[in-house]
């Protein structure tokens, strides 16, 4: 037996059987090419606000270079309790109901591992962020995808959940505003889903990392609805609204028993989030209205531009209401999402992400991120126009 085959057979089978993210694959292709305009980047193009960067340098100079409390700095948790109350409408005790994590990514993993026993089912909606399915599987859960569709703006409804819920369902995962569709929830649908979660006694994990980034109507968090706070883990972080992806800072808020369980895993595996990033986050919370408003205005203008341009091109696209993604259908061109994206890349040097990276029901769509300059967006639209005006049969 050759060495690598024998190593493969010794891997954990769950890990071995999960494919790499489709995004990663696509990145490997794009990174070998020159002059590509990328609408494939799922992070802000803005620089982290200067006052945040400057105070991080200051924190480094002053020696904030040690382990922090496992929960994270208390002053940061206090500031977060105020922020979450003001913006999302839920009260948390900074002493024991808020945990600072290495991004929403870690928080999501902790929440699932703290909750799931092998075989517990997790309802989540697709198309969705690339990590959800894998993170559920790593936590020995059973992922149960619910498809959202463009005909109602990719919103989730109670009826969709009713069709997939079973006695083994323990957790409902939500992500609005949504990556990759740009969908947000209507108040009525959200209330229905909240009632459903209470009736079925489900724990809700809500990833609200794009919560500040909505363009027509404000975002409502499910934690603010009656009865939900005590069965919900609220996840948020600094990556998107503050353009701080590389700081790797997020947090979880929830009932003390749940946060305590998550903290135990975090304590033994991560110890604490970066001290410098925590200092940066504290500074970021000093004037969020100002920092975020400017970026939101700019995203809104780009969203308007992209929505208008796609409709002129005859691309079938529901209106994105949040995050920084448009998710047009490319079905009428008769190519798979992947072939469409590959040909667009090779023939016109525009990178978009095939919808299938976000779940099988993403087939027929591509994700276009408008977290890039208007110059780039304009050029990309021009190239897409040229691309789709040719016959595209495979």
């Amino acid at each position, binding site marked *: 037996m050759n060495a690598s085959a024998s190593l493969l057979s010794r891997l954990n089978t769950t890990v071995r059987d999960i494919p790499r993210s489709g*995004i990663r694959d*696509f*990145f490997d292709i794009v990174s070998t090419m020159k002059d*590509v305009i990328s609408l494939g980047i799922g992070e802000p193009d803005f620089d982290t606000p200067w006052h945040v960067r400057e105070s991080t340098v200051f924190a480094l100079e002053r020696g904030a270079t040690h382990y922090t409390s496992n929960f994270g700095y208390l002053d940061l948790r206090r500031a977060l309790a105020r922020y979450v109350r003001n913006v999302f409408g839920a009260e948390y005790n900074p002493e024991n109901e808020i945990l600072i994590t290495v991004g929403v990514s870690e928080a999501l993993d902790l929440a699932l591992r703290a909750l799931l026993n092998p075989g517990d089912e997790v309802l989540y909606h697709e198309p969705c962020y690339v*990590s959800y399915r894998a993170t559920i599987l790593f936590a020995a859960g059973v992922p149960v995808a619910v498809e959202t569709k463009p005909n109602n703006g990719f919103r989730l409804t109670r009826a969709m959940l009713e069709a997939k819920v079973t006695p083994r369902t323990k957790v409902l995962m939500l992500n609005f505003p949504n990556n990759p569709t740009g969908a947000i929830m209507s108040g009525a649908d959200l209330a229905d889903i909240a009632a459903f979660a209470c009736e079925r006694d489900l724990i809700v994990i809500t990833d609200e990392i794009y919560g500040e980034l909505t363009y027509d109507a404000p975002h409502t968090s499910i934690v603010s609805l009656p009865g939900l706070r005590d069965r919900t883990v609220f996840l948020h972080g600094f990556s998107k609204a503050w353009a701080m992806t590389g700081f790797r800072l997020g947090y979880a808020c929830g009932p003390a028993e749940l946060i305590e369980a998550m903290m135990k895993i975090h304590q033994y595996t991560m110890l604490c989030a970066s001290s410098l990033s925590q200092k940066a986050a504290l500074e970021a919370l000093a004037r969020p209205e100002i920092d975020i408003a400017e970026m939101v205005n700019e995203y809104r203008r780009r969203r308007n531009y992209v929505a208008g341009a796609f409709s002129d091109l005859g691309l079938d696209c529901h209106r994105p209401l949040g995050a920084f993604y448009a998710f047009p259908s490319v079905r009428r061109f008769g190519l798979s999402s992947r072939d469409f994206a590959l040909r667009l890349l090779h023939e016109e040097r525009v990178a978009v992400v095939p919808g299938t990276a976000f779940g099988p029901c993403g087939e027929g769509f591509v994700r276009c991120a408008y977290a890039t300059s208007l110059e780039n967006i304009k050029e990309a639209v021009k190239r897409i126009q040229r691309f789709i005006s040719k016959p595209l049969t495979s």
Partner: protein
Amino acid sequence: MDELLKLLQTNALESPENLARMLGVTAADVSARIVDYEKKGVIRGYQAILNEDQLGLDKVTAVIEVKVTPQREGGFDTIAQRISRFPEVSSAYLMSGTYDLLLFVEGRTLREVASFVSERLSPLEGVLSTSTHFMLKTYKRFGVLMQRESSDERLSVSP
């Protein structure tokens, strides 16, 4: 401030069609509003923002603090407007604090600026004293950093 003006401040060359698309209005509406702003004098002109250090020009810029006596009629405005009319003066502001007017004065050489100060500015009636500082290097103008930030460090595709 009107969103349209904000957009023009960052790029005055943007076409009315693109501006309209970003703002969710019609191109005709954008053009009409721009004409209106120009007529009313809200928009005073359009300029390119240059990194002059890169051009190696024969040019010096001085920042001059000026103390003046306000006139009996017209206060500071009369003297400030008189000074502003000199083509050498590129900007002029009334200030609070230890002096009254702040001028940006441009010339080809140090000597040229010096003679403007001593022969034209200081002798004006109402000018009490001046203090001249020469500019050495420009880091930022009109909100634009002169040294470009490093290019996009983001991965070309990410989740």
